């Protein structure tokens, strides 16, 4: 049995999580500063992939990145293959799982005590420093939870991914597309195997999320008992 789907899924989930991490931090912070109406519009656009069927995302992605479409062609000309390539999987997973990171991070940032940022400013700290050394550490649990959830979602992405990168064993096959193919071709044994692998990974991720939340609670109790 080839372990390629596991490797490919982890690779796709990891890269898309990295993209989502920075994009989610940036947009979560940036959108928060807008007036209510614009904030609402951005919120809708950035959360849309969460509620849309992944096939709709896949459809748009194909229209953008298909080798015969303008953007896809341009990228191919400079040697970047998106459709039918694992890199396309990174884009598809990133778009579908982005809202999970964005919403969690924005929630965390909104709960952040702005007085801390103002205090930093009166001490002459740069905005850059305040963001990375005060705001992000203060919200680290929300950010971590968002990243882990986005990673888990990216790992399980099927719809948009299968539309954009298809199923090429040894090249674009992920755990979820592999399960589908095994099921379709009546290979229950292998389908079960990959279902098992997927269950284990997902369970580990959720245990991880719980640990983050528990340390959070633990700290809080410690805090209230001290003061």
């Amino acid at each position, binding site marked *: 049995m*080839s372990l390629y789907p596991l490797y490919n899924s982890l690779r796709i989930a990891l890269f898309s999580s990295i993209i989502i991490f920075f994009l989610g931090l940036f947009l979560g912070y940036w959108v928060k500063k807008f007036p209510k109406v614009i904030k609402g519009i951005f919120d809708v656009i950035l*959360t849309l992939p*969460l*509620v849309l069927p992944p096939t709709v995302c896949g459809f748009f992605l*194909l229209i953008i990145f*298909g*080798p*015969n*479409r303008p953007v896809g062609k341009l990228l191919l000309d400079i040697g970047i*293959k998106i*459709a*039918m390539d694992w890199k396309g999987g990174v884009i598809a997973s990133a778009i579908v799982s982005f*809202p*999970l990171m964005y*919403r*969690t991070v*924005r*929630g*965390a940032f*909104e*709960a*952040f*005590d702005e007085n801390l940022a103002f205090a930093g400013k009166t001490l002459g700290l740069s905005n850059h420093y305040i963001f990375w050394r005060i705001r992000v550490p203060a*919200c680290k*649990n*929300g950010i971590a*939870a*968002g990243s882990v*959830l986005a990673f888990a979602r990216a790992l399980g992405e099927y719809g948009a991914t299968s539309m954009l990168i*298809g*199923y*090429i*064993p*040894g*090249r*674009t096959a992920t755990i979820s597309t592999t399960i*589908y*193919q095994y099921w*379709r*071709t*009546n290979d229950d044994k292998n389908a079960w195997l990959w279902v098992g692998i997927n269950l284990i990974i997902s369970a580990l991720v959720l245990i991880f999320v719980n640990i983050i*939340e528990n340390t*959070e609670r633990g700290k*809080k109790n410690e805090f209230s008992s001290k003061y």
Partner: protein
Amino acid sequence: MKNNKLLFLVASLLMATTLTGCKTGNNTSNSNTNGGDSSSKVSTKTIIVFAAASMTESMNQIKEAFEKEHKNIKITYNFDSSGTLKTQIENGAECDIFISAAQKQMNALDKESGTEGALDFVDHSTRVNLLENKVTLVVPKNNPFNVQSFDDLKKHLTKKTKGFVFGMGNSDVPVGQYTQKILQYLGLNEEELSKSGLISYGSNVKEVTTHVSEGSVSCGTIYATDAYSGKLTVVIEATIEMCGGQVIYPAAIMKNAKNVEETKTFFEYIKGSKASEIFESVLFTPLFK
């Protein structure tokens, strides 16, 4: 403050579920109104036809012509790979007529076909060989790998040309099964090619067609009819020898068909001359004339 984060997470997830919930709600109410409409015209009967994906264009044209002549009968189609349709029928999907792109899927549902382990869904007395199709090798616009023959395909696959991907149906899809025969005929080892990442598997023939027309794969094997409907460049047709036999589409009425009379009317229609003309127009060879 800390609780807010969790709250947000829960809220966003809740929002996702509620919104999805709304959508399903709307859908149901839509289909309800449709149902209401048809029942008000007391006599309208619906026939459900499960047909191989490759028949999409021709069957839609036939539906149009048929419904003009028979105002009281409404045709509902389900197009997918014959393997998927077979699984859906096995799992209890309502279906009156089944048209498969290969005998294998029909046999699996036809107890009287004598196939081992066949299920009893098909009314064997109605079963006919309806159409013949051809498997063709197609390429995307500009033919990036200059594939001109099955030998060129073999050359690229054996040399493992960088960037070359061959598109075919998976082993559950009839066109995939015919392609497996072609690969055998060419003396190629599918498993080995697949391990080298040279094969893209589609879950029905339309998916393979889209992969070729979008240029996502370097070339692919699909039916002559799909190449025609998808306006794709056909390099060459596979011979009957290469496919391990003729590409025959069997059709049959199901044993548990609901509106028997109307189902028979439509079944006779697809065997008739008008339907044959439509089938011929997309390059099928009708076996009933």
